């Protein structure tokens, strides 16, 4: 079967208007400024080798910080240093008001711990059932974040979670639950889990963190984060 002449290349049966619009469309690339800003948001991830096997600054962060999280929101995505002094990228406005607080379960393993890691079906190209994932302990009372943040993307939600890690890991954990609820097959499921594990550690719930890390390893045996998680947990 032969491929038809593309609109942009014209042809006897292609109206000039169509050829003109499609030709223009092929040249409609973002500006250099757009791409520079995008690169700035991605930060050090751009310098990582394939598979993220060598993250910048990895050796310099402490054992806890070694989890490293990449999550960019409306702005930046990778933040490897979780420490309280980690500077926030300058172009990350926190213009979206914080959602109502959600208190995670204080001492028991929360439902999210026993739930399978939500699939990154998008990245894998296959549907991943969520299995017996239970709602979070607070899900029944949790407001519908989507209704209050109708345009929030996965990246934005996880960036809020990442940003909350240092000062309020409980909120960070709650935000990862929101992500799981709203993006059950989101492409950033792995990043969400890394944030959640770090949040659990910061809450002193090391057993929970270890269990969740183990679930992560089962779900994503080839993940670039797995080694980092292994080295950061007791």
């Amino acid at each position, binding site marked *: 079967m032969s*491929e*038809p002449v593309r609109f942009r290349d014209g042809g006897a049966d292609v109206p000039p208007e169509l050829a003109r619009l499609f030709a223009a469309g092929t040249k409609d690339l973002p500006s250099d400024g757009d791409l520079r800003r995008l690169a700035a948001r991605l930060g050090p991830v751009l310098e990582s080798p394939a598979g993220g096997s060598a993250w910048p600054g990895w050796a310099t962060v402490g054992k806890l910080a070694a989890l490293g999280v990449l999550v960019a929101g*409306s702005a930046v*995505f990778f933040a490897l240093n979780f420490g309280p002094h980690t500077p926030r990228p300058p172009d990350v406005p926190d213009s979206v008001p914080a959602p109502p607080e959600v208190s995670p379960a204080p001492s028991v393993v929360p439902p999210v711990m026993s739930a399978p890691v939500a699939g990154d079906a998008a*990245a894998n190209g296959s549907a991943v059932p969520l299995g017996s994932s239970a709602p979070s302990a607070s899900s029944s009372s949790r407001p519908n974040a989507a209704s209050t943040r109708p345009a929030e993307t996965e*990246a934005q939600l996880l960036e809020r979670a990442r940003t909350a890690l240092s000062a309020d890991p409980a909120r960070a954990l709650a935000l990862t639950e929101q992500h799981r609820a709203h993006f059950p*097959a989101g492409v950033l499921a792995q990043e969400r889990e890394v944030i959640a594990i770090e949040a659990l550690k910061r809450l002193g719930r090391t057993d929970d963190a270890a269990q969740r890390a183990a679930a992560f390893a089962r779900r994503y045996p080839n993940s670039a984060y797995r080694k980092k998680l292994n080295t950061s947990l007791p």
Partner: protein
Amino acid sequence: MFPLTLLKPGAASTVREVFDEHAGYVWRTFRHLGISEADVPDLCQEVFVVVHRKLGEFEGRSSLKTWLYGICLRVASDHRRRAHVRNERAHAEPGEHLAASGSFGPDARVEARAELQALLAELDDDKRTVLVLYELEGLTMKEVAEVVGCPLQTAYSRLHAARARMLEVLTAAREQGSER
């Protein structure tokens, strides 16, 4: 034409290299798939986060280009799946743009983009995706079928239907313009 890069297994490559070569095309693809301009940067970020995570597993069975487009489509699909953005489309009536347009004005690029997006908004997601990948991104139909994950014949059917719809809309716009 999209600069085609074939990554072979074990090839030294960084996300930076992939970004430098393809970020503009990733951005443009989201535009053409009907993602609002405000959300395009975030979705591009999601793509390159996935690239960072997955690049080491990329086996070179397909071109990097088709691999990347596959990620784009899935990210866009996830984005659309949310009810409040599902109907997010182009912002203009195709008839208005096409009937009035003869040549690009001072802000020709933006105007042409709006016209094109209005046209593409006439298509459902399946047809639109095939049309965008073939007509605008320059993939072969075999590559389109691979990225979309459908039989080649299905991809052709969608392309033909999409092209026919484009011509239909254009004809209607012309008639509308001639009546004014």
